[in-house]
Every structure is written in structure tokens, then in C-alpha cells.
């Protein structure tokens, strides 16, 4: 029963894609949209039903599994289309389908006038299906399949308005950058198969921890470290971490619901999911964990700095997403797996809320995205305004909004850790929190208060968004307010999410050693510190941008502002040091291909041509000749039978 429901969870979105694809001519747009929404809502409800059944904490990781069909079989390899719903994937599935449903509903309004309405929902449902495959897949290949599937959908949706060359380019960029990460993932997968002889995730992790217990894989084992690092390369690509984060801001070229769903709430957290899924590997590889923590902290910091001066409302949120993802990796790196997952959930709430709110603003202003040309929208967009306001509080991490609890959990684990690394990344995170609060309220002030700086076209069509768009905003806002209750600080002894996930990370924590419980007053003190930092940042921005952008309006020509305005010149550096050499290599390879390889091929072709010229004499077109030869063959056969 539960198995069948589990299968339904993943099959429904794909079935919906098939229905919409094959019936796209006859299906009315409205009905297609409703089908798409239903195809996300039903899996959500099913997940709730099935997920309730796995809550029991047994020594084994509680899970529901189902095998749809056998897939790859050959040699020692046996991979099935198997699904596995355990606490971790259940959490993710709920986020994906829950937030996904809200965003689908929102899209009904947002994409209402778009000629590609039906296409949009096909892609969206395909994305949901792929994401579920990624999360629910019980084997690495299926995970990889979903991984690539969401990548494809991301590409399709970034370039949704592909008539515009820039959008199409952004899609390509996302795709190519992701490939680099995927290569890492693929290599990791091969190494895992070589090491463990299976690709079943549960088997791999359990055999690793069992092997460690038997002394087979000591702490810091080279092979395990390498696998963990390669996995992290893949996660970097998908989750936009430091060297590979350049695609995410460009991905904002897609429709805003896409940004909310894929590039903030769900797909980009796939990297987190993967690292969390293989937490045992990272626990056994301190070096890899350190790399994760450092990269996460640096990404959080650098992205936040860039977000400080962005003018595009969506770009600010995009860099903020990178930054928050950095937090999550920081958490994973310092061993705060539960806290990282918690942050994924709350971040999904408030970042989806912020993106959708931004979308509502953009929608209202007839696709104006430049925050410098907004201002004073508060009275015009009341519902959008207060939900966005809530989102800002949550993102900035102000008590008692959701972001506060999750962020604080990560920072607490980092700052209170031992050794030189943990406090270092913790401090970086604290500075980032300051900047986060600053740019969040800068954005709020620029958009909703101060003098109106709209151009005439935007002002003419100014209107509050329809209910299909504001209703999801309200729901997400409520979630952003109360979401923190899922996992209160340790001293409150109320940790719903943490308890739920405990069996998943039990083995990893057993390897790394359970974190010591800190004294209540230390934790409270830390909280107060971070709250003070955050409120300080918010206050600073609140005052500074009370009257619009002020001195930020003219483009800076030098100094740090110049660097930040141009995003640390990362794209340009890539152009010179990565793309340039590649172009040269490609040119060389092209030359080789055209003259050497083609020369050989053409030579062979000419040889065949020559042979053909001789054989052609035999084909004179007269049936009788052929018949004669044919009969000669027949006679030969008959005679040879004699």
C-alpha cells in the first residue's frame, strides 16, 4: 500500500507531463494549468500520508522503499528504478512539492498572459518529477538521472523566453557550468562503484560505516576523502558555490516563479541534499569537510558583498541565495547536518516568498526589475508589501522569524566548535549576517519606501497582483514567521526536525563524535550577539536608504564600490583565464579535425569511391543481368547440396 503510494508520488508528475504534452493542442490553457497544479499537490498529500508511517525511530534508518522496474543490469551491476522515502528525502519531498505547489498556483497568475503558458507548465511539472527522482531515488544512477533532469529543466526554464539571445545564453551558461560539477559527481559515482561494488545509496553508506567500524576505512582515508571532494565538486556546480557560482545570478533571466522554485527553493539545494545524503563520507574525511566549510563561508561572504550594490531586484536575491547556500555548506562542513537541512527548509520558505514578492512587484511594474527605478510602492501593493516585509525579516534572521533559528543554529555550531577552523568560518558567517541584514533592508527601502522613481510606462499599469499570486505569498509569509518552530534551540528541548532526521545522521555523527552540548547561557549569549549584529545591519540600511538610493545611484568609478558593482570581475576573470585558453585549444583541435581527421576520412571515402566506380560496371540496370547472377548463385547452392 505505502509502496504503491510512493510510486504514485513520482509517477503523477511524469504522467501529468505526458498528458499535457500529448494533449497540448486540445487541452485548454486553464485546464492544463490546473492539471499541473494538481500533479504537484497530490504528491505532496501522498508524501504526508506515506511520511507519517516512517516516523518510528528504530535502530535501522526508517524508510519506505519501492521498486518500480529493473533498469540497468549487467556484470556485477544491478540498478533498479527503486524509490526510498526516509526522513531526509521526506523532508525534501515535502519542501519540493509543498513550495512547488504554491509556486505553481502563483504561476497561474504570473504567466497568465504568456503565449508559452502550456509549455511553462510542462517544464515545471517535468522539473518537479525530476527533482522527486533525485530526492527519492535509492541508487546513484537514479539520483544522477534526476540531477541531470533538473539541470535540463533549469536550462529550459532559464531560456524560457529564448527569443531573446541573452536569455538563451544564460541558459547555456547554467548548463555548461553545471556540467563541470556533474563531471565531479560522475567520477565520484564511478569511484563509489569501484570501492563498494554497488550503487545503492543505503548499502553504500551502511557498508562505509560498517567498514569504518571494522577499521577498513580509517578517519581521513585518502580514497574516501577523494570521493567526498568529488561529490562536493558536483554539489558546488548544482548549488552555485564559489568557483562555479557564476551561473546562478544569470539564471534570473527565467520567469520569476522559476527563480523562486528552481533557483532558490529546491534545485539549488540538491547539492546540500547530496552532501547530507553522503554525510558519512564527509564525516570520515575531515579535510573534505574543512574544504566544504571554507568554500561555504567564502561563498557566503563574497556573494553577500556583491549583493550589497546590486541594482536588479532579482540579482540581489540571487546573490543572497548563493550566500545562504554558502551558509548551508558551512553548516555541513562543521558537521551541523541537521542545522543545514533546517536552514534549507526555512530558506525555501522565505526565499520563495521574497522571489515571489519580487515577481509580484515586477509583474505590477510591467517587467521593470531595476530597484533604482522603484520606490514608494508600499501603498500601491499592500499585500505584496507586507509579505515581502516578513520575508526580509526572515532573511535577515531577526527573532522570531524562521531565518533566525536556522542561521543561528549553524553559526552557533561553527563558533563554538574547537580548533582554528570553526571559529574562523563562524566569524566569516557573522560578518555575512551583518551584510545580509544590510542588503535585505536596502532592497526593501529602495523598492517600497522613499520617493517614487517609476517611469511613465510602469506607473500606468501599476496594480496589485491577483489572488492566485498573493495567496501563495500569504501562505509563505505565515510559514516564514512560524517556520522556526520546527527546530528550536537546544535548550528549549523542542526539536521536531532534528529528532525526525536524527537516524539519518546518526552514523555520521557517531564517526565524527557527537557535538558537545553547550551551556544554556553560552548559547543565549551567542544568540544575542548575532541578533545585535543583524539588527545593527538592518538599522544602518534602514536609515541610509530612507530617501532612496542616495549616493548609490551614480555608477562608481573606482575603489571597493567599483569592484562590488562589477561583481569582483569574476565573469571577466573567467573570460580571460578559462574561456580564452579553451578557445585557443578549440581552435587547435578544430584545425586538427579539419585537416588531419577529415583528411583521413576523405581519403577513405575517395578510396571507396574508386572501388565503387569499378563495381558500378556490374550494376547496368538490366533486370536480366541481376537475375542471371542470382540464378547462378541459386544453381551453385543447389549443386552444393547435391
Amino acid at each position, binding site marked *: 500500500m505505502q509502496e504503491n503510494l510512493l510510486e504514485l508520488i513520482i509517477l503523477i508528475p511524469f504522467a501529468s507531463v505526458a498528458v499535457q504534452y500529448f494533449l497540448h493542442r486540445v487541452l485548454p490553457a486553464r485546464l492544463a494549468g490546473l492539471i499541473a497544479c494538481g500533479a504537484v499537490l497530490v504528491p505532496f498529500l501522498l508524501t504526508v500520508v506515506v511520511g507519517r508511517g516512517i516516523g518510528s525511530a528504530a535502530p535501522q534508518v526508517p524508510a519506505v522503499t519501492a521498486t518500480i522496474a529493473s533498469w540497468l543490469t549487467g556484470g556485477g551491476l544491478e540498478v533498479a528504478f527503486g524509490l526510498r522515502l526516509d526522513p531526509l528525502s521526506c523532508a525534501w519531498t515535502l519542501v519540493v512539492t509543498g513550495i512547488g505547489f504554491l509556486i505553481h498556483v502563483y504561476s497561474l497568475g504570473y504567466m497568465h498572459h504568456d503565449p508559452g503558458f502550456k509549455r511553462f507548465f510542462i517544464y515545471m511539472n517535468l522539473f518537479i518529477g525530476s527533482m522527486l527522482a533525485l530526492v527519492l531515488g535509492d541508487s546513484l544512477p537514479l539520483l544522477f538521472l534526476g540531477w541531470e533532469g533538473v539541470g535540463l529543466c533549469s536550462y529550459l526554464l532559464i531560456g524560457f523566453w529564448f527569443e531573446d539571445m541573452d536569455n538563451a545564453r544564460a541558459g547555456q551558461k547554467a548548463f555548461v557550468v553545471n556540467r563541470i560539477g556533474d563531471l565531479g559527481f560522475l567520477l565520484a559515482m564511478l569511484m563509489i562503484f569501484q570501492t563498494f561494488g554497488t550503487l545503492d545509496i543505503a548499502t553504500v553508506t551502511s557498508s562505509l560505516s560498517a567498514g569504518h567500524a571494522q577499521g577498513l576505512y580509517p578517519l581521513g582515508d585518502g580514497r574516501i576523502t577523494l570521493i567526498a571532494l568529488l561529490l562536493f565538486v558536483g554539489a558546488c556546480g548544482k548549488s552555485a558555490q564559489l568557483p562555479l557560482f557564476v551561473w546562478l545570478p544569470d539564471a534570473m533571466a527565467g520567469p520569476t516563479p522559476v527563480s523562486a522554485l528552481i533557483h532558490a527553493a529546491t534545485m539549488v539545494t540538491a547539492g546540500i541534499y547530496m552532501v547530507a545524503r553522503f554525510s558519512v563520507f564527509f564525516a570520515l574525511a575531515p579535510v573534505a569537510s574543512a574544504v566544504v566549510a571554507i568554500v561555504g563561508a567564502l561563498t557566503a561572504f563574497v556573494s553577500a558583498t556583491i549583493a550589497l550594490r546590486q541594482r536588479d531586484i532579482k540579482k540581489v536575491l540571487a546573490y543572497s541565495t548563493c550566500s545562504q547556500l554558502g551558509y548551508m555548506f558551512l553548516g555541513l562542513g562543521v558537521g551541523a547536518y541537521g542545522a543545514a537541512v533546517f536552514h534549507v527548509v526555512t530558506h525555501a520558505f522565505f526565499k520563495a516568498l521574497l522571489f515571489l514578492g519580487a515577481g509580484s512587484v515586477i509583474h505590477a511594474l510591467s517587467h521593470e526589475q531595476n530597484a533604482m527605478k522603484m520606490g514608494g510602492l508600499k501603498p500601491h501593493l499592500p499585500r505584496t508589501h507586507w509579505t515581502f516585509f516578513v520575508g526580509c525579516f526572515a532573511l535577515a534572521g531577526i527573532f522570531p522569524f524562521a531565518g533566525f533559528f536556522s542561521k543561528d543554529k549553524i553559526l552557533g555550531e561553527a563558533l563554538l566548535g574547537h580548533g582554528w577552523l570553526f571559529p574562523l568560518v563562524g566569524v566569516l558567517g557573522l560578518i555575512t549576517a551583518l551584510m545580509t541584514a544590510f542588503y535585505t533592508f536596502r532592497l526593501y527601502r529602495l523598492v517600497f519606501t522613499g520617493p517614487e522613481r517609476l517611469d511613465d510606462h510602469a506607473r500606468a499599469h501599476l496594480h496589485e497582483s491577483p489572488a492566485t499570486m498573493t495567496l501563495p505569498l500569504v501562505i509563505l509569509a505565515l510559514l516564514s514567521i512560524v517556520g522556526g518552530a520546527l527546530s528550536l534551540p537546544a535548550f528549549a528541548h523542542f526539536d521536531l526536525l532534528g529528532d525526525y532526521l536524527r537516524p539519518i545522521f546518526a552514523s555520521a555523527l557517531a564517526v565524527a563524535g557527537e557535538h558537545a552540548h553547550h551551556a544554556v547561557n553560552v548559547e543565549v549569549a551567542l544568540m544575542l550577539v548575532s541578533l545585535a549584529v543583524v539588527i545593527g545591519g538592518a538599522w544602518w540600511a534602514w536609515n541610509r536608504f530612507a530617501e532612496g538610493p542616495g549616493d548609490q545611484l551614480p555608477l562608481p568609478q573606482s575603489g571597493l564600490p567599483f569592484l562590488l558593482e562589477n561583481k569582483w570581475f569574476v565573469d571577466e576573470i573567467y573570460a580571460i583565464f578559462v574561456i580564452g585558453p579553451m578557445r585557443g585549444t578549440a581552435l587547435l583541435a578544430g584545425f586538427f579535425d579539419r585537416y588531419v581527421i577529415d583528411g583521413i576520412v576523405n581519403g577513405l571515402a575517395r578510396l571507396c569511391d574508386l572501388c565503387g566506380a569499378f563495381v558500378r560496371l556490374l550494376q547496368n*540496370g*538490366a*533486370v*536480366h543481368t541481376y*537475375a542471371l547472377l542470382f*540464378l547462378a548463385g541459386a544453381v551453385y547452392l543447389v549443386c552444393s547440396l547435391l
Partner: protein
Amino acid sequence: MITVVDYYVVASILFAIGALGFLLRKNVLVMFMSVELMLNSANLVLVASAKSFDLARGSAFALVSVAVAAAEVGVGLAIIIALFRLKATVDAEEITNLRG
């Protein structure tokens, strides 16, 4: 006593005559008829052999082959008509170029 071998001999002769007709005649239609002749001789062998095993089964085989022959003749004659319209001849030795 008439045995299978006698039928084989008759079928062989018919087959050889069919082959002869196909090779010697220039008229596409007559060539086609020769092909039918060969097909018939093959059927004869089939049915005669089936007597030693399962006549119903052999007849069923032959029946399918008759159906195939019917389809083949239909298509073949249609092609010959189209060819005649194009070239105004049914002489196989004049029809040597695929290009119309």
C-alpha cells in the same frame, strides 16, 4: 505408387521453366508470370512434403504464401502500370534507368 519424390520432380520442372521464362522473356508481364510459376512450384513442394508431417499445417503455410503472392501481384502490376505510363514500354531491357 505416387510418392513425394514425383511431386518434387514436377515442382523442379515447373521451377526451372519459371526461371527460364524469367531469363529469356523481355516482357515484364511475362517475367512476372514466370515468377508466379516458381512460387507455385515452391508451394507444391511445401504441400507435398507436408503429407509426411501435418497436412493442415503445410496447407496453412501454403495459404499464407498464396496471400503473399496475391499482395505481391497487386503491387507488382501497379508498378508495371506506372512504369508503362512513364516509359511506354514493358520491355525489361529498355527499362534500365531508375531515374524517370
